[in-house]
C-alpha cells in the first residue's frame, strides 16, 4: 500500500508541477513544488495555502482475485486567500485555477503508472519498478467552504493497486 501511495504522490506532484511550475511552497527553508503529503511532514498547526495537501483516508481491500486489490481514498485539500495585491478579491479565481490544475493532472492520460518502490532505494538513487500498476478514478470535488477570507475545497480520488507478495 505504501508503495502505491508514494507512486501516486510523486506522479501527481510531477504532473501538477508541469502544469504550473510557479505553484511552490517553502518547507523547512527549501522551495519545492506545491504538493505535499500531510502524514509525511512534521506536525504543524498551520494550513498551507495555494498548495495541494494530500491525506490518505479511506481504505478497502478485495481479496477475491489472485492478488488483493487495494482501494485507497486520497483526500486532496487546498485553500487560498487570494493575492494580497488584490485584497483577496481574486480568491474565487485562484480556487478555480487550482480546481482546473488538479482536474487536468488527475484526468490526464494515462490513468495508470507502474508502481515504484522508493523505500528500497538508497538516497539519491532511482526507485525500482514493481510488477503491477497503480491506477485511479476521476476526482470528486466537494463544495467550496469559506472560512473567513479563506476559500477551501477538498477533492477525493480513489487510487487502486494490487498488493504484491511481501509488499508492505
Amino acid at each position, binding site marked *: 500500500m505504501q508503495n502505491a501511495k*508514494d507512486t501516486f*504522490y*510523486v506522479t501527481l*506532484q510531477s504532473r501538477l508541477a508541469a502544469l504550473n511550475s510557479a505553484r511552490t511552497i517553502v*518547507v*523547512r*527553508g*527549501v*522551495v*519545492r513544488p506545491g504538493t*505535499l*503529503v500531510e*502524514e*509525511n*511532514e*512534521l*506536525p*504543524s*498547526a*498551520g494550513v498551507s495555502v495555494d498548495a495541494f495537501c494530500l491525506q490518505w483516508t479511506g481504505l478497502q481491500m478485495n481479496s477475491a482475485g489472485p492478488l488483493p486489490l487495494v482501494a485507497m481514498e486520497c483526500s486532496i485539500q487546498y485553500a487560498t486567500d487570494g493575492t494580497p495585491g488584490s485584497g483577496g478579491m481574486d480568491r474565487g479565481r485562484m480556487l478555480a485555477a487550482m480546481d482546473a490544475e488538479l482536474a487536468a493532472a488527475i484526468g490526464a492520460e494515462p490513468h495508470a503508472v507502474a508502481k515504484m518502490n*522508493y*523505500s528500497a*532505494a538508497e*538516497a*539519491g538513487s532511482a526507485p525500482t519498478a514493481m510488477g503491477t500498476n497503480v491506477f485511479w478514478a476521476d476526482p470528486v470535488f466537494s463544495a467550496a467552504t469559506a472560512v473567513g477570507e479563506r476559500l477551501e475545497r477538498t477533492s477525493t480520488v480513489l487510487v487502486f493497486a494490487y498488493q504484491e507478495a511481501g509488499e508492505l
Partner: protein
Amino acid sequence: MSDLVSATGAAARATDVLLRATGGRTVMLRMPAPAVPTDVNEQLGIATPAFQDIPLGPVVYRKARATVAEGKAAKWEMLVSATVVENLVGSLTYASASVLFSAAYGVLSDDELLEIVSATQEQVFGQPYVYRLVLRAPLIQMA
C-alpha cells in the same frame, strides 16, 4: 524622551529584567535541519531531518497551570524575551521571528516537547519587547 526609549531598546531590557526576576528560566527551541532540495525520500517520510536544540531564555510561563479542557490537549502560555529572539533570528538568518517560530518543531521544556500553536509579539514604539507563545502538550497527555 520617547525617541530615547525606542532607540535604546529600554522596553526589551526592562522586560528581560522582569522575566528574570519572576523566575525566568531557559527552555530549548527544537529546530529541524533545512530540507534537502529534490530529495524525494524526505517528501515521502522515508528520510527524517536532524534536529538542533537551541537555548531560549529567559522565558516565563504566564500561568503556573496549563489551560485544560476535556477532550483537548493542555495549553501553556509562555513569555519569551524579545532580545534573545532577535538574536536568534539574526544568527540563524531567518527573515523574521514569525518565520523562526513557524519553522520550529516545538519547545523542549523539562523533557517534554510542546508544539508551538501560535506566536505573537507585544510592541512599544514599533519595537517588540516580548513574544507570547501558545504551546500545546502532546496528545498522549490529553485529559
